[in-house]
């Protein structure tokens, strides 16, 4: 049976879209059929995180009644499917987000998981994304502004009759001033599905010629491993976590760099040999 989950946060910039993409890929890697929907019709960027920016038909066209939903579903990395939102501001102005629920209901039965990336805030478009899902996951960072907004979005979801199933704490740095997981559980009265550490690899994933989610680019990074555990928790399926890459100290970085340089030179030599062989 399909599970349709909306990922919300209240506050913007807490890594909601990146988590949606990565959890989706992790679920797909475990053999599940996953559809990701970018319901952030104003500030769409799920397709950018997945490296799928050139999608001619988008959710905008479907909500405007100008395209069929099936034509807006694209094959994404690692076997995920994606319904992107368009980047056009004009189309956004004309879109009726209240149609989202019926649009998603018309395709959800073909999948094991449908993950909806909601916009930030508590406005109409966010409500449309919340009611389009049957469950809600709240993403927050361990600081008070983000938790205050998470609290508000939880109340909005409850008002709309959708009960949130848990929290993901993102960008955790284990600093003294962070609001502790126990306090977050007490405040939001929800279980924690996982804690994703701040990992520079997530940010670096957007800064590549070919952008792809961190879970594909660096599958053994701390953030990737935490995301795999969250996906396993959500699906109830065991997902193999990789070996965590330890943070290198100054000397290991120095010698590691030296080794890497040696390796690069060796590779170049081998390439030169091959060229000579030709």
């Amino acid at each position, binding site marked *: 049976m399909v599970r349709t989950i909306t990922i919300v946060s209240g506050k913007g910039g807490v890594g909601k879209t990146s988590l949606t993409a990565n959890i989706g890929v992790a679920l797909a890697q475990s053999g599940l059929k996953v559809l990701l929907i970018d319901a952030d019709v104003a500030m769409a960027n799920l397709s950018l995180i997945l490296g799928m920016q050139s999608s001619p038909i988008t959710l905008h066209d479907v909500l405007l009644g100008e395209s069929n939903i099936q034509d807006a579903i694209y094959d994404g990395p690692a076997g995920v499917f994606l319904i992107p939102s368009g980047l056009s501001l004009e189309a956004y102005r004309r879109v009726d987000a209240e149609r989202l629920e019926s649009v998603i209901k018309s395709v959800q039965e073909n999948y094991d998981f449908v993950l909806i990336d909601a916009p930030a805030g508590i406005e109409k478009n966010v*409500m449309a994304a919340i009611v389009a899902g049957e469950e809600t996951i709240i993403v927050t960072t361990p600081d008070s502004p983000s938790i205050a907004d998470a609290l508000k979005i939880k109340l909005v979801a409850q008002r709309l009759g959708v009960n949130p199933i848990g929290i993901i704490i993102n960008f955790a740095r284990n600093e003294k001033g962070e609001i502790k997981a126990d306090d977050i559980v007490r405040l939001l009265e929800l279980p924690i599905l996982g804690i994703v550490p701040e990992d520079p690899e997530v940010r670096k994933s957007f800064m590549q010629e070919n952008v792809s989610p961190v879970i594909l680019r660096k599958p053994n990074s701390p953030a990737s491993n935490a995301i795999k555990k969250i996906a396993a928790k959500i699906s109830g399926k065991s997902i193999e976590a990789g070996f965590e890459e330890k943070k290198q100290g100054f000397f290991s970085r120095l010698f590691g760099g030296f080794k890497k340089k040696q390796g690069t030179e060796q590779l170049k030599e081998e390439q030169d040999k091959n060229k000579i062989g030709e």
Partner: protein
Amino acid sequence: MGFFSRAFGRVASIILDIDDTQQPKEQIAALNDFLARNRFDIETTDLVEFLGLLKKKHLVDSITISRAGEVVASSSNNGIGDSFASAALLEFVAKQISKPETILLKMANHWFMVFPFGQNIYIVKASTNLSTIELRAVAREIEEFLKKEKIGKGNGNHNHKKETLLMKRAAA
């Protein structure tokens, strides 16, 4: 502190990895307070009381349920008037334009919202307008209550014993 001592302190804190952050305890207390003020216990078997609790939960001024021109229940002083007005409005709009999903009227100091759902018409007054999604959530919650309490089921004649409660105004 001068520029150099500040810069030196900053460099030292980075090199020594000094964590000078602290938990914002007052803010956590404020969030706890906010949470306590936003708890909604809507468990009741009394329809009028339920509407009173629901209007607080959904941050609206009044809710009236109308069916076939009769008031099923209202948390407003003017349930009958609202019910007549909404029936007339729906009929007029349906005749002159087309069948509406919602009618929103901006009054001088509030919004008058009419939302047909199932066999009932819901009339909601609030200081700001609600989206159809929010109105549907209000209506759904009431429909579930009516179903659970077996109120007004079937025809428009409300002969259930709970009818005695129906026109009572909810406690503020």
